[in-house]
């Protein structure tokens, strides 16, 4: 899919992370995101399994005077989603094959998978696509020796680069990525020499556009996925045509809240070219890969404008009642989804939640800064629990951010007709649990440094310092 985008003076390449389920593709891409200080978008994930892809963009380096814009994509590893995997592999300029090398059976499974991958990329283009085998999970005690991996890969891969990694802690991830860029550039050089490098804007230039493209790819019904029902609803939903999104030019009078600022918010959001897609619970969501989220619940569809308008009033009251707690740049709008069908949409400009703010501190600020952020996040979460008492707002690391006056709710607002989610009475335990999970999933490599930072935070200890210190040691 490489393309020369002369408008932006960039050569656009796609690096696809492939590999069997649970080999560490998503973990690798997320570790790379932390290293490059970039955000990874994962459109759909069920029980820690990628259903579509992970997406990240990075512009860096130069090639023949053009910037190198990398689209970094990982494929779903489950066999049932093979069609999506093939569709993504067919667009690769280079493949980083993440192999699980923690034991011999895993290596055997990875070898089977890598051969399958080779067949796919051979079939899709006459110009060879570079492949790097990234031997992952090298820190595990039973990890298979490098020579044995080479032998298992066989003669077909004798000249394929083999790198080693521990994706959880980020070891080997950036080197592999830079190596992959080099291989992709070799391919581009060849395409240029042949006069075959296309020019123009990439057909797919965002996670949202890729998602829209993949929605048309059929998948088999799941057989091995734990949360099969969720996947089934994703698959079946693809058949329903997407509703028209709200347009600031045709929103009827009284169809938007807040009346003036709402139109500005809607104008800004719709100018980014939002694409709606169905999500597992039957709702529609738009804005993947942008700073906007537009959401329309399956429960807010009406056959008359008046009905939608009445619902808008209720939603507007709920927003107004919580205005002090919410992040800015929001609106609720009624839009004609199809002739005679009205939908209520909630549109929010995203601001980073506490989780992103903490994770982005991993590099380059070090453990002390990271620990300080964890403590501040714990305090903000504690405040949010107190402020949101009696509301439907659920304070979590993904819904609360840092506002000018402390904690602010940064996520989509729960519907005014929804049941309030049960809330744990023990706020401290709840905050500690969330932080422990975050440390285990995203900050495991920093745990030792965090423990040291916790020990050194003696002079300015607050009750939340203790909570974070316990969360660090509990994991």
């Amino acid at each position, binding site marked *: 899919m490489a393309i020369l985008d002369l408008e932006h003076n960039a050569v656009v390449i796609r690096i696809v992370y492939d590999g069997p389920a649970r080999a560490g593709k998503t973990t690798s891409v997320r570790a790379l995101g932390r*290293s490059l200080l970039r955000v990874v978008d994962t459109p759909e994930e069920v029980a820690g399994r990628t259903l579509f892809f992970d997406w990240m963009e990075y512009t*860096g*380096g*130069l*090639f023949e*005077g053009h*910037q*190198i814009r990398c689209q970094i994509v990982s494929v779903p590893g489950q066999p049932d989603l093979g069609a999506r995997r093939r569709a993504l592999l067919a667009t690769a300029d280079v493949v980083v094959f993440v192999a699980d090398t923690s034991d011999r059976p895993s290596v055997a499974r990875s070898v089977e998978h890598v051969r399958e991958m080779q067949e796919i990329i051979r079939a899709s283009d006459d110009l060879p696509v570079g492949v790097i085998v990234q031997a992952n999970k090298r820190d595990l005690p039973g990890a298979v020796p490098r020579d044995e991996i080479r032998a298992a890969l066989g003669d077909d891969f004798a000249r394929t680069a083999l790198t080693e990694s521990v994706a959880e802690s*980020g*070891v*080997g*991830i*950036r*080197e592999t*990525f*830079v190596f992959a*860029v*080099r291989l992709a*550039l070799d391919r581009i050089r060849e395409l240029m020499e042949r006069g075959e490098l296309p020019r123009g804007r990439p057909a797919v230039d965002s996670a949202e556009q890729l998602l829209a493209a993949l929605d048309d790819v059929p998948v088999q019904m799941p057989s091995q996925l734990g949360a099969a029902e969720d996947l089934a609803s994703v698959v079946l939903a693809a058949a329903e045509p997407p509703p028209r999104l709200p347009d600031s030019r045709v929103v009827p009078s009284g169809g938007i809240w807040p009346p003036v600022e709402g139109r500005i918010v809607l104008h800004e959001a719709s100018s980014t070219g939002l694409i709606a897609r169905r999500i597992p619970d039957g709702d529609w969501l738009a804005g993947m890969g942008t700073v906007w989220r537009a959401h329309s619940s399956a429960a807010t569809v009406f056959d008359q404008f008046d009905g939608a308008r009445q619902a808008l009033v209720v939603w507007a009251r709920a927003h107004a009642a919580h205005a002090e707690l919410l992040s800015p740049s929001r609106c609720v709008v009624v839009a004609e989804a199809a002739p005679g069908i009205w939908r209520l949409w909630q549109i929010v400009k995203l601001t980073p939640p506490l989780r992103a703010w903490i994770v982005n501190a991993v590099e*380059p600020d070090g453990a002390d800064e990271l620990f300080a952020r964890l403590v501040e996040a714990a305090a903000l979460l504690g405040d949010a629990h107190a402020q949101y008492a009696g509301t439907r707002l659920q304070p979590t690391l993904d819904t609360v951010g840092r506002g000018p006056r402390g904690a602010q709710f940064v996520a989509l607002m729960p519907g005014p007709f929804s049941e309030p989610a049960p809330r744990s009475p023990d706020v401290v335990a709840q905050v500690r649990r969330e932080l422990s999970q975050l440390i285990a999933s995203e900050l495991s490599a920093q745990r030792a440094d965090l423990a040291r930072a916790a020990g050194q935070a003696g002079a300015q200890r607050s009750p939340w310092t203790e909570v974070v210190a316990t969360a660090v040691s509990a994991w």
Partner: protein
Amino acid sequence: MPAEKQIVESFEKVAAEIPGFIAAALVDVESGMTLGMKSLRADFDLAAASAYNSEMVKQKHKIMRALSLKTTLEDMLITLGDQIHLIKMVSPTTFIYLAADRASTNLAIVRVAVNKNLALFT
């Protein structure tokens, strides 16, 4: 090639030996991508600087080929009004790019500190 974490730690060591250290990166010549970096100044766009300096290294190699020079490029020293920039080849495929404040240091100190720690980057 050392891991990213080792590269950052090695640059911390180099930074401690160079007064006026601003930023440094280990850069892939071919792509201009950084393999690891350390910056003390938030306004110094090290990724962009590394990318453009990789072009300079490639151009220098091109010049050497044009002149049929049968030797290797070791380093490139650049003196700006208020900064010193050093490009030190670590291997045929990677180089260190380092920027330091000219008022606080000099080329000799920068060069000695980088050469002394060069093995950490191979």
